[in-house]
């Protein structure tokens, strides 16, 4: 189990990671998601032992790896890493790259491990090639095999798909997830792409300005975002102006709703998060809204709809419901729970 306790990281006087705590169970895949410069890569490097922590501690299997003024060397940590640029050694063959971290093992065993890993990542015949003879996706697989070879307890992946073509990413993400799950180790990935995070991770942490905004499953991030930033960063959505009425219910342009947890007192101004899948298109419905924008997504069309009072929401409709711009279409609300933020 990997545990971070109130970790802060600073470069000089600039604090780039503030007070981050999280834990990753054995066999779980975690992901740090956030815009560039949010501190996610610094956090990953601190776990690997390339950056010192200013406060807090990094604990792996009950062993303290990093504390202020105390750092275990990266080579002593049993943490594997896949780098953004893969960092494969150009002077070595694929097999020699994978065997790099196995020098303490006898030759025969090294060869056996290399062969197993090459088979695992789907490149059983490429062991004698040099790195520059491989495609980007193949290099990625070699980098993974090399990191897995010394049997690390945790695998770290820094933007592992950013250098690859879009159509390659999804297939590779599925493969790599399967491989990590098959090895039964924990993994922590860093990315700025939420779809990569959804495809790979069991637990996702959203970071902004060096702080961990929320740590949870993809479902939780999408449907129960902890704050406005998470709501905005993960998925599409619109915020509708709302107000708490005297009886504690919330009034919005889409109607009046009871609060799931009545935390807001009457008179407070609020914003209600409405996801595209909260609004269901229904030609029979009496409630209508005006189409002001549409974007074809293959199986679905994402409509931008204008409500009474000029507020806008999104609606995801099956793509054979092809309506004209400026026409009015019937909608039905399917709000399971209210996500409310006090208005800034």
């Amino acid at each position, binding site marked *: 189990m990997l545990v971070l306790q109130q970790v802060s990281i600073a470069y000089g006087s600039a604090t780039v990671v503030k007070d981050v705590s999280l834990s990753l169970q054995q066999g779980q895949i975690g992901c740090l998601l956030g815009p560039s410069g949010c501190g996610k890569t610094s956090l990953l490097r601190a776990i690997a032992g390339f950056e010192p922590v200013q406060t807090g501690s990094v604990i792996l299997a009950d062993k303290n790896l990093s504390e202020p003024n105390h750092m275990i060397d990266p080579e002593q940590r049993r*943490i594997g890493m896949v780098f953004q640029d893969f*960092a494969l*050694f150009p002077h070595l063959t694929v097999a020699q790259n994978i065997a790099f971290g196995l020098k303490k093992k006898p030759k025969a065993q090294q060869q056996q491990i290399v062969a197993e890993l090459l088979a695992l990542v789907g490149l059983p015949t490429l062991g004698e090639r040099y790195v520059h003879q491989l495609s980007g996706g193949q290099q990625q697989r070699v980098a993974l095999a090399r990191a897995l070879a010394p049997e690390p307890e945790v695998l770290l992946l820094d933007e592992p798909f950013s250098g690859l073509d879009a159509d390659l990413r999804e297939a590779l993400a599925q493969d790599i997830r399967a491989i990590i799950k098959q090895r039964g180790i924990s993994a922590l990935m860093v990315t700025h792409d939420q779809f990569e995070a959804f495809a790979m991770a069991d637990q996702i942490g959203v970071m902004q300005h060096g702080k961990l905004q929320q740590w949870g499953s993809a479902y939780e991030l999408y449907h129960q975002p902890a704050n406005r930033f998470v709501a905005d960063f993960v998925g599409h959505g619109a915020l509708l102006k709302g107000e708490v009425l005297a009886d504690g219910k919330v009034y919005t342009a889409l109607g009046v709703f009871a609060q799931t947890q009545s935390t807001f007192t009457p008179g407070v101004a609020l914003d209600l998060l409405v996801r595209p899948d909260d609004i269901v298109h229904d030609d029979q419905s009496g409630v209508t809204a005006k189409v002001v924008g549409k974007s074809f997504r293959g199986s679905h069309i994402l409509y931008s709809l204008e409500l009474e009072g000029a507020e806008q929401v999104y609606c995801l409709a099956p793509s054979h419901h092809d309506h004209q711009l400026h026409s009015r279409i019937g909608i039905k609300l399917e709000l399971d729970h209210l996500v409310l933020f006090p208005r800034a």
Partner: protein
Amino acid sequence: MTSPLFSRTITVFALLLAVPVLVVLGSLVTPQPQLWTHLLDTVLADYVINSLVLALGVGLLSAGIGTFTAWTVARYQFAGRTLVQWLLLLPMAIPAYIMAYSYTGLLDFAGPVQSELRLWFNWSYGDYYFPEIRSLPGAILMLSLVLYPYVYMLARTAFRQQSGSLLEASRTLGLTPRQHFWKVALPVARPAILTGAALAMMEALADYGTVQYFGVTTFTTGIFRTWFGMGNQLGAAQLSALLCSFVLLLLYLEQWSRRKLKFYQQGQKQQEQSRQPVQGLTGFSLLLLCLLPVIFGFFLPALQLVGWALERLEQLWSADFVQLLINSFSLAALTAVVTASLALCFAYAKRLSGHWSLVLPVRVAAMGYALPGTVIAIGVMIPLAALDNSIDLWAERQFGIRTGLLLSGTLVALVLAYTVRFMAVALHSVEAGLMNITPSMDNAARSLGESPVGVLKRVHLPLLRASVLSALLLVFVDVLKELPATLLLRPFNFNTLSVRSYELASDERLADAALPALAIVLIGLIPVILLSRALDRSNRGAT
């Protein structure tokens, strides 16, 4: 990351290498009105005008030859193209001063060309006009013939990297291929051509052997004359400072166009343009045109040298020649090791800390490549002589013994000057090698269980070997070819191939000078061959 002791040592070494430049520029602080009035009244105008005309002439001519050959080789497919593509680099192997006296031997009154002409047309002395090679235009021609490869190399890469769709875009917008060259291809390659021309002009300003042999008075010959003829060391330093300002101007031009180079080559898809096939007579004439600079810049002078050397073949086993070889090789090897080791330290210091207190001195130390050997020699001589004098004085007072010239009259001065001059060559090579080792490779090796020392051994050492070797080789060859600094700083009675060949040629013993000259040319071929292979590789990488 680095220990303070290490970075301080590196800073000291880098500052030490910056001393010659600073001494030369610092000489301006002590005014010498008498000398300068004298110079102004007599030769200064000659120095300035001749140096400028020489530099500009060499810049224009080498840009012309280099651009034409680069465009032809990059854009047309004709019989013999692959061969001529690397033959065009050969003239780099011949130092300009060796060209100068080879051509003098070929073209003077008693030489084969004029003799044949007289025989054919039955002329005798005074019947005909023949251009004098030993002149300013002659010097421009000699220097351009060996320096155009700078432009050729950079322009060829620039033309190669121009996307194929660029020509297609021009054609769809109504330009003929000829108009495309003038309106698009040439402007896009301009930063590369300018960079090459600036490098050639710097070399032209640095030249001493050619202009001295041809009797053209320039800054470099003036510095020698002021130092030895007038015995005015400070004056020589001040002239050097003036020459430096011209060079720094060129250096600025070079750096400025290099920055543009990055900008111009950015954002263009590397879509290879196929070469236009040219057959028959047109193809043959293209081949011939591209061969002209090679014939005049390499084969003709080389054949002349071989002819002379064959006449004096018995020299090859003489004790004198063997001694020359030993002197030159050991000096070059010593300098190569010192320079490459220092370059390695500098490069690592920069990689590990990147603090300005390290980066700035290293950058100043690497400026030496732009400075003429003459200037560096003066900058080394003055402080070392002062140091020798004070040590001598101190030793006499303390122990009653005289130490004499401890440093300035010895190989120490020479090696120091070479190190200053060629540090940039070694640093460039080592830094390029180190750049291929990304920081994440270090991290990857560490997280795979390797200690810092282990990372050096298993990752850095094997990956750096080639670039350190090429740094050693480049410095070795450059030292062998270097003339003016060696002339000024060599210990008494210590001769090298370049000095000996130059002295013999100056005494009009051209045939005797050929063997050492040929040795320099042959060794000079090694880096040219390596360079052409590296160029081929980078061009293939772009496809």
